[in-house]
């Protein structure tokens, strides 16, 4: 690990000039697959639903291919040593998401409640905006360490983003969770962007404070207990996540935000005690809030007894119809898919209704691609996380390490929380599957996240410049006969 807090220091490591190969051609080859698979899937949906190849196949394929191509060219030019897997994996997920959204657009039931219809074309525009942000990150962020300068601005920015939905007139309460803001006809989930900005703040803050947090502690019963004053920041973060939970009734963001902080704290300090504290505090927070917040209680009940709650809501005995109904519909969708799924376009996941193409999109994959498809998708997510962690391991500066692990940890947590919620492993939260789900904020923010990871991996894998010619070396040079 290079131990420099000075942004101007250049590569001081001893790695020689024979660095890792750039792997740009590998990336290109993988991208071809990442575009071809969704194109085939798109044709498949059309054939299943209308018995003909969909009219938009060419424009859709070209559109996705073009976006992937731009991404690739920009990486080739501005981040030549970046990890070759991140871009193709994200492209594949994004493309499959587009296919699923288009497939749900065909549902008359969803059209009738204005959830579907033209969402795939909108999602393609959001994807373009996401790729644009991805390109902007790579072009303008030459070195991720620049972000350290914005540690406290990031903190302020994150707080603003997180609290924005609470501003009267701006926030929109959609089905019980206040996590959207509405500007004109646009709705944005600031939480998705806050995730990245917060990771920057945590990385910058923890890099500076990590020694104090790690070393100034007392040993008690085998655990290093932090000092009271060091507990300050963790208490603040805990407090904010509780506030989000209470006022925005957003279990997902609150969990994600706190989980990411604990992960980064642990990595920065290498102290297991922080994890113990983190788990304890999240448990206290969750139980405490759940004991008086009806929205959370509904979700917990719907999770513990989905069929019972469904029947009760059907019979009109209880309200809270929305959540148990959806949870149960999603379980049925998964069950009906079985091992191999019904095939694209041949399931009935539109029965999930209003969030079928956003929070619950995984159920469509579960029904139509089956266990096999879901396992593949989960493994793709797993691979993205793995490449992120690998980037963190390879990064040579603590800020880069912390930022990379923060982002990939948050990504993993989000996948777990959403997929676990939809599959009934944990209570439902209102978050989206990165890249798969319909929604501008999510796609754009996650492309930015991939952009930053690619930037860090480029820096990490970039070979150190060749050492300056050493005059002494000449003297020991072997002269060939």
């Amino acid at each position, binding site marked *: 690990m290079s131990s420099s807090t000075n942004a101007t220091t250049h590569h001081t490591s001893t790695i020689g000039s024979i660095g890792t190969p750039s792997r740009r051609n590998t990336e290109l080859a993988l991208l071809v697959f990442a575009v071809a698979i969704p194109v085939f899937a798109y044709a498949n949906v059309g054939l299943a639903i209308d018995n003909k190849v969909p009219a938009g196949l060419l424009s859709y394929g070209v559109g996705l291919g073009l976006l992937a191509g731009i991404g690739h060219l920009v990486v080739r030019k501005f981040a030549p040593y970046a990890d070759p897997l991140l871009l193709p994996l994200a492209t594949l997920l994004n493309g499959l998401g587009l296919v699923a959204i288009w497939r749900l657009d065909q549902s008359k039931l969803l059209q009738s409640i204005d959830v579907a219809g033209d969402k795939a074309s909108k999602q393609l525009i959001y994807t373009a905006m996401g790729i644009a942000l991805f390109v902007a990150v790579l072009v303008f962020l030459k070195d991720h360490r620049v972000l350290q300068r914005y540690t406290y601005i990031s903190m302020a920015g994150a707080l603003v983003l997180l609290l924005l939905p609470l501003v009267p007139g701006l926030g929109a309460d959609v089905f019980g969770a206040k996590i959207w803001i509405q500007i004109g006809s646009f709705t944005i989930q600031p939480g998705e962007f806050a995730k990245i900005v917060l990771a920057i703040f945590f990385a910058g803050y923890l890099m500076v404070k990590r020694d104090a947090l790690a070393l100034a502690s007392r040993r008690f019963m085998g655990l290093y207990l932090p000092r009271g004053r060091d507990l300050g920041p963790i208490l603040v973060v805990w407090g904010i996540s509780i506030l989000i939970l209470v006022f925005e009734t957003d279990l997902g963001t609150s969990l994600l935000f706190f989980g990411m902080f604990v992960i980064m704290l642990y990595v920065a300090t*290498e102290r297991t005690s922080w994890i113990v504290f983190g788990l304890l505090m999240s448990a206290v927070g969750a139980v405490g809030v759940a004991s008086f917040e009806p929205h959370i209680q509904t979700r917990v009940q719907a999770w513990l007894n989905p069929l019972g709650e469904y029947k009760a809501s059907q019979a009109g005995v209880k309200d809270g119809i929305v959540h148990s109904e959806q949870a149960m519909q999603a379980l049925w969708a998964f069950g009906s898919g079985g091992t191999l799924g019904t095939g694209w376009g041949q399931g009935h996941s539109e029965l999930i209704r209003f969030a079928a193409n956003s929070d619950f999109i995984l159920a469509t994959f579960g029904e139509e691609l089956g266990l096999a498809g879901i396992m593949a998708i989960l*493994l793709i997510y797993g691979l993205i996380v793995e490449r992120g*962690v690998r980037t963190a391991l390879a990064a040579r500066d603590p800020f880069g390490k912390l930022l990379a692990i923060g982002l990939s940890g948050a990504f993993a947590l989000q996948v777990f929380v959403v997929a676990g919620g939809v*599959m009934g492993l944990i209570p439902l939260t209102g978050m989206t599957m990165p890249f798969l789900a319909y929604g501008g904020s999510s796609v754009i923010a996650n492309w930015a996240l991939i952009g930053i990871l690619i930037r860090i991996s480029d820096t990490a894998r970039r070979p150190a410049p060749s050492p300056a010619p050493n005059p002494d070396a000449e003297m020991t040079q072997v002269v060939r006969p």
Partner: protein
Amino acid sequence: MNKPLRRIAIFCGLLILALLIRDNWLQYVKADSLRTDTKNRRVLIARYSTPRGDIVVDGEPITGSKKTPSKSLNDFAYKRTYKDGAMWSPVTGYASQAFGATQLESIEDGILTGDDDRLFFRNTLDMLTGKEKQGGNVVTTLNGAAQKAAYDGLKKIGGKGAAVALDPETGAILALASYPSYDPSTFAGNSLSTDSKAWTKLLKKNNPSDPMLNRALRETYPPGSTFKVVTAAAALENGLYTSADQATDSPVPYTLPDTRQPLKNEGSIACKNVSMREALRVSCNSVFGKIGADLGKDKMLEEAKKFGFNAQQFVPVRSNASNFPEKMDRPQTALSSIGQFETAATPLQMAMVASAVANNGTLMKPYMVDKLQAPSLDVISQTKPEELSRPLSEKNAQILQSMMETVVQSGTGKNAQISGATVGGKTGTAQHGVNNSEKPYAWFISYAKLSDGSSPVAVAVVVEDEHANRDDISGGGLAAPIAKNVMEAVIKNKK
């Protein structure tokens, strides 16, 4: 920093692993139960996604499928139609997009939709060759002419009632009629304006005559005097009397044991010390009440159970269990033995009684599905007649037959005589309601025998005529003509 990083990597791996395990549990272990959950709307969507197979009578389908107009939100492609729906509904049940399916439509749903595992190979072939999935057929044992005779007869009287005809030698159900009935076509779709309205009108709370009740299988009535056949069988089987013409030691008036309450006979018929033949011919309460009391509760119960009482029958549609009370004192045993007190029987049960007598004492298990056919008409399963029990020895059965034949030749059942066939029967007029205040039920059970000794049909008919004059209600008057028509239809069909 790398050590905690590696641990975080493991933690992230565990998160993904947990999701993978959960997914396997959900989509592999629990998949079948979720997929077939009746609340899962996909079950309905699949049921109506292709034309359903048909329910077949006499080689002709009595059901059909019609493509629903592709309105914007209807996710059901096909709708069920019924031919003579009201007449056949006790057999078919209904399959409604909005209200689910019952009876044969529900029990054989797998065959009718084509989803049954036994059709798996064929479905796989169809999938590979790109053919649309088809449903198989359910071929019933019913006889169209007999069913029509039964339904039309009940309809003519206009009261509530039911009729069941069995083939005594196999147990095959030949007629299963209930009146008033309903046409399942009227609510086979899911339109709020037509189907839901039709359904609401049929519900018992809106329609006191309860047309959706399958009276042939699901309603139990006090069987009245028709139960005396069971009592006579018990007397013969237990050796209380060994012949039909032996004088019974029975006084008139007969006082119920342990009481001072006399058991009355209808009108002024002579019942003192008459033979069982004579007692059955004129329907003496005193004789059969005394036989029941003499035999005692246990022997009566044993015989009733042999005839199928106190158990549900599955034909394969479930019928309610008929009831012969298990707890009663001696006077109650006497009353139960003439079909009063808590004795109650379904029309199917009483048809089983007649069929066991006609079949020389062997009771065959009633059934109404002859075979299940694949869409290609290949037979998937064929029902083989099964013996249910032997309530009577052959000799005693023949004694009882001669007694029942006397009832039709010269007794209360004259209305059921058929030229060219020997008919045995028993009438019943069952009183019910508090202090017998309500109009009694008219019963008739009978069987027909041909000259070659074969017995092609046994019938039970019950009629509740709200319009008739109370004194006119009798099993011989109201129910016997219907039974006669049903038997004639079967005999004619057989020739």
